[in-house]
């Protein structure tokens, strides 16, 4: 399966060195690292497509896949937004500006931006699923005239989990762009809906049977969203999901990311619903 990105590594090789140039704390557990490849030529040549991921390596600890939350038109700023949850991400959380890590990538097949032109776009994300779609939103903002109406729906468990509050506020002010937020548990001053993100579909002013939908988040949230959108006439080809499984090699060799017959690292991580309908929602796959 060819990947949509420029094939950079016909043979699997070691990472490149990257330096932390900016670090932002987004929430008590979520932080953003902006990286720069220390080899100037590699840095200049680096390109990615929205939805792809990099393998980030912490010296002496390990390597993990992290989606690219950068602006595709500013590839010199390699942005990764990360939740502190495991051994490697706890180490990344301790990084400071100037610290060095390893980077391999980009890998995988991203969002179907070519199909998005001229269409209404519905973006449904949950939790940190907002990160892999950020490059798409940036792309749309750069070329707003190429796309129809845009709705950005983001759900979180607790209102305090919402990152990028200011960004959502700015996006909501763009022409023909709606931002709808949902939290299972609202905090003080919560501006959005209280409950599941799927409840926000009732507030949409676009025809879901005709729009392109991009989804990223926990599988139960994507499952509930897909069911409701299909019920409302969405086509399985117009519903795209970013899937996640254990990934260790990122080139389809280590076997961990197998999802049915798919290798998520290579055939995905973004799939049209029609490609994975026979697997989606099945426990233990």
């Amino acid at each position, binding site marked *: 399966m060819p990947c949509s990105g420029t094939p950079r*590594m016909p*043979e699997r090789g*070691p990472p490149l060195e990257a330096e932390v140039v900016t670090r932002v704390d987004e929430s008590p557990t979520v932080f953003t690292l902006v990286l720069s490849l220390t080899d100037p030529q590699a840095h200049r040549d680096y390109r990615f497509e929205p939805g792809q991921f990099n393998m980030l390596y912490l010296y002496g600890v390990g390597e993990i896949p992290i989606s690219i939350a950068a602006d595709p038109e500013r590839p010199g700023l390699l942005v990764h937004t990360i939740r502190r949850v495991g051994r490697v991400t706890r180490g990344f959380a301790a990084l400071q500006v100037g610290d060095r890590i390893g980077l391999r990538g980009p890998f995988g097949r991203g969002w179907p931006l070519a199909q998005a032109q001229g269409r209404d776009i519905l973006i449904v994300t949950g939790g940190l699923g907002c990160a892999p779609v950020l490059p798409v939103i940036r792309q749309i903002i750069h070329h707003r005239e190429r796309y129809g109406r845009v709705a950005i729906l983001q759900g979180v468990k607790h209102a305090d989990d919402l990152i990028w509050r200011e960004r959502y506020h700015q996006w909501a002010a763009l022409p023909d762009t709606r931002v709808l937020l949902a939290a299972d548990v609202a905090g003080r001053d919560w501006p959005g809906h209280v409950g599941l993100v799927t409840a926000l579909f009732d507030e949409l002013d676009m025809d879901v049977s005709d729009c392109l939908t991009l989804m990223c988040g926990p599988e139960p949230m994507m499952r509930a969203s897909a069911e409701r959108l299909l019920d409302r006439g969405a086509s399985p080809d117009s519903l795209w999901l970013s899937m996640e499984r254990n990934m260790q*090699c990122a*080139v389809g060799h280590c076997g961990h990311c*197998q999802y049915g017959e798919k290798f998520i690292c290579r055939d995905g991580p973004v799939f049209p619903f029609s490609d994975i309908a026979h697997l989606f929602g099945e426990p233990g796959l």
Partner: protein
Amino acid sequence: MFLARTHLGELLSALRDRGYRLIGPRERDGAIVYDELSGAGDLPRGLRQSCGAGEVRLERTGSPRCFAWANGPQALKPLLFQPAEPLWQATCDDSGRLRFEAVEPRVTPTAVLGVRACDLAALALLDRHFLDGAVRDPHYAARRAALLLIAVNCTHPAATCFCAATGDGPEARQGFDLRLDELDDGYLVASGSAAGEAILADLPLEAATDARRQNAREAVAAAAAQQTRTIPPGDLYDALSRQRRHPRWEAVAERCLACGNCTQVCPTCFCSREQEQPALDGSTSQHLREWDSCFSEGHSYIHGLVIRQSVAHRYRQWLTHKLGGWHRQYGRSGCVGCGRCIAWCPVGIDLTEEVHAVLGDAPDA
């Protein structure tokens, strides 16, 4: 052509003279393992193998034959896709700068004597996985290019074998440099490549008689006929996917220890995990690749969540991938009928029995 048994040593010498490290079967710890051979005397002469579900026994027969058994726990896979090897190394200097270097595989030209048809079929599958995708594995590729394969047609399949049902044996039909048929007094020899042909030119060969050729043909036919285990033919992906909730998955999970032996002896299982091995002084860290198993809990771990929590899910994943997923990924089954997963399972789980039960077509039902 025919090579008299007394000249077998000359085949081994011809390989060594060409600079090959010689790997072949020998007896160790009550099993037949593939390891370095110093000469024909190391071969498992007069040994027979008795296998059942969860059982492997060697027996002495007094026969002069060296290949009158089916297979050992491993053959080619560990020679190419090593159980553990470093892929790259990171060096950290005092200022925290990192330098990454690929660890080049140490490759010795290697000749393997006694390769079975099932092993060749498995090798062709591993080639597709590691070499034919968008990204090649340089370690596998380097070792694969340095390999010379001397197949021996299988005349003594184990009770656990079912290569006739998968269509992969017992006769080696392709993928070898040389192929032998073992007879009591020697070997019929055929070449399958230019490298094999060149080696034949060095050997004291005689013309093969019709009687010997017929003898060899009949032995291979008998080896196919005596196999009793079967596996349903074709792509089982849809059929197995329709049975995701079959109670048999829970039943087999009651017996399965999730030890992963089946995946370690399987000649096509390709899963590996990656691990860091930092030096004690902190100045370097090696990035290792080690065989993994879909029976381990960590195999399906993502940020705090294990996708395949139950052993039933893991067994279902393994069997469905082996007999179904492989068809979609690589155009054929991932099972070559070697029966190793049956023989080396500590509790004797038999995938042929399980797949028939799940699909409801048990041959004896």
